[in-house]
Structure formats: C-alpha cells, structure tokens
C-alpha cells in the first residue's frame, strides 16, 4: 500500500509555470497578444488546463481557424496531449531546466502524423481510463478495475480533473493494494522513454528470483546490461538507484497508474 502520504501529497502538488505564446504566423491583429502565464499541475493533461488560454488567443487569430483544434509545441516539437504535463517537461527539459516553460500555441497545420486528435475532454477521459485499466491488468490481472463501480471510475477521473487529492486517493488506494499473500504487484506498470523517441514497456516483476525486493539498480542492469551509467528521472527528480520498484510504483506513479520515466 501507498503509505508515505507526504510523498503522495508532494507529487500531487507539483506544479509547472508555463508561458504560452501564440505562433507568429497565426497573429492576425496589429496588436501583438500578451503571452499567457499559468501554473499547471504536473499530473494533469494539457486539454484540461488550457481553456482560458485558448480564449485569450482566439481574438488574435483568423476567425476561419477559430474552430480548428489547438495544439502546442516546444522548440518545434509537437507535444502529445495524452502524456501528463510533468512527464513532457521532464522529457524535453529534464537535463536543461527552463522556467517558465515557454510553449507555442497553434491553430493551423495540425501535425496529423505525430499527434492524436483531441476534439473534447471525453477523449482525454477515455484515454485516461484505458491507461488505468492497462495498469491494473499488469498489477492485479485487471481485477480491481473490473470490480469497481462506474461511480468509482468517475471519482478517479473527477479527482484528477478537479485537482482533488482526497477524492482521487479514496479510490486510487484500492488500485495500490497488493493482493493475495503476495507483498507487491504482479507486475509494475512502467514506461521508460529515451531521447531517441523510443518507449520501452516490459513485464517487470517487483521481486527478484530469491524473493527480495527488486531495486531500480537491479532493473537497469537487466534492461540495459551494456550501459554503464544510466539514470532515471520522473517528477523532476533523479530516482535513487536503491529505490525498490514496488515503493516507486505505489508512490511515484502518475494518476494513470503508470510510472512514466525518462532515461538520462
């Protein structure tokens, strides 16, 4: 069980200052729009926190583009809305912190081959719930999610969407329990991203063959036997190599129940 409440709270409260700027070629007014500054939760998703920003910039663009889907880039790299914001920051700026994080807002030239379409927040919810289900298949063969009621699923989503820690964790704690006589999950839901754009997801057991708790260091030597020095970053911190994977999963997972980790 996730027992270190201070850690859970600290992770939940993580925020990033963002400076949104409208792409120059989109500006149709003589007067330049002011950049839009906002603090956003690291655990959230861009479509959940950008309504106000969108309204701010709509006045400055050509009205024929006003109904187009908005998208964001950092340094020319389109940002995938279906990844948590904090993870995107760690991926692009982890080694070279830049605050506030300056992003460019677009209403035209949607990069179809890179980004998924996100016409409304229901799509974000569907993506989120599906990821939680995938994580639960790895942890408990899907048994927790399938025995929960629809209202519990809603509560998870609303807790995240409305930034309500207690509401979210009242349900999420059930997803963080170990089942049977096992101390730990069946497998650890974890995605490791390297800067070449490759995502690695494997069946990772929280225990070694001798029953001891598997650490980050042991995992890295299994996954990357040839690499001498690898570090992992999540929520803006480098993970100490002696951290047990089970503890990491219970406390440092994103609300979608996955650990999203950058290789560095």
């Amino acid at each position: 069980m996730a027992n270190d409440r201070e850690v859970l709270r600290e992770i939940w409260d993580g925020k990033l200052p963002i400076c949104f700027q409208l792409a120059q070629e989109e500006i149709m007014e003589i007067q330049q729009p002011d950049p839009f500054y906002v603090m956003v939760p690291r655990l959230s998703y861009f479509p959940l926190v950008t309504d106000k920003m969108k309204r701010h910039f709509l006045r400055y663009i050509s009205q024929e583009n006003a109904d187009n889907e908005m998208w964001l880039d950092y340094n020319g790299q389109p940002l995938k809305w279906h990844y948590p914001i904090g993870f995107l920051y760690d991926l692009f700026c982890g080694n070279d912190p830049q605050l506030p994080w300056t992003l460019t807002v677009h209403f035209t030239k949607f990069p179809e081959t890179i980004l998924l379409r996100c016409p409304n927040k229901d799509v974000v919810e569907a993506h989120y719930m599906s990821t939680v289900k995938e994580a639960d298949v790895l942890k408990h063969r899907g048994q927790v999610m399938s025995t929960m009621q629809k209202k519990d699923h809603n509560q998870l989503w609303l807790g995240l969407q409305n930034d309500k820690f207690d509401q979210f964790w009242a349900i999420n704690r059930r997803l963080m329990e170990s089942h049977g006589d096992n101390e730990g999950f069946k497998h650890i839901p974890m995605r490791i991203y390297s800067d070449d754009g490759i995502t690695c997801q494997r069946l990772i057991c929280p225990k070694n063959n001798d029953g001891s708790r598997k650490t980050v260091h042991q995992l890295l030597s299994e996954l990357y036997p040839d690499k001498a020095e690898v570090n992992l970053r999540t929520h803006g911190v480098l993970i100490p190599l002696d951290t047990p994977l089970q503890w990491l999963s219970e406390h440092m997972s994103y609300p979608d129940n996955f650990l999203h980790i950058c290789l560095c």
Partner: protein
Amino acid sequence: MGDEKVPDDISQADSDNTKEVDQKENGDSVKSDKVKVDILLKATGNAPIMKKKKWAVDAEKPIGWIMEFVKKYLKLEPEEKLFLYVNQTFAPSPDQIIKNLYECFGTDGKLVLHYCKTQAWG
C-alpha cells in the same frame, strides 16, 4: 483502395508460414531483418470477421497502423470507427508500439487483439 493487396510488411502467418522461411533462407540481401510478431485479430460485437486472422507484423509499428490495416481489409468507410482491445480490457492508444504490448500481454507467442465497430469494453 479496396483490392486484396496487403502492405509489404504484413504477411499472412497461418497458411503460408513457408513463405517467410524461404525469404529468410535465400534473401539475406532482400531486407534488413525486421523483428516480426504474430498477432491474432478477433472480431467482436457487430464487426465483420476477417478471413485471415493471424498475421505476422513488424514489431516496431504502432497500434494505429494495425487499426488502419484492419479498416482497409474490412473495407470500412473512412468515417467508420474501429476499436481495438487488448485482453478484452483496454484500448491501447494508437501510438503504442506493438512490441511493447506483445512483451507485456502476448500469450503463446502471439498478441490477441479484439476489434469492433462500437466501444466494447469502455
């Protein structure tokens, strides 16, 4: 659009396994050896059945690519929807790589994907 041709890098895995073996024996210059994995496509709900269910696909491709392939194979209209499910539980996002899903959810050497035209498992 609409003919029976399949893309170069997808091949029928059940009836003509030999085809792949032949390629490997005499064709080391033909292609760089891409890792392939077997997927099994099962219809559910109101979706039409595919005649060939088992396919060997490039492991590095994203799930969205399989979705496009199935839509083409079933001759669905562009606006028709197709949902793919793993373990009859969750819908992987279209940019998830087949290899990752195969490693985590493959059984007996293949990844089973259920497809349907309406949402089946939420």
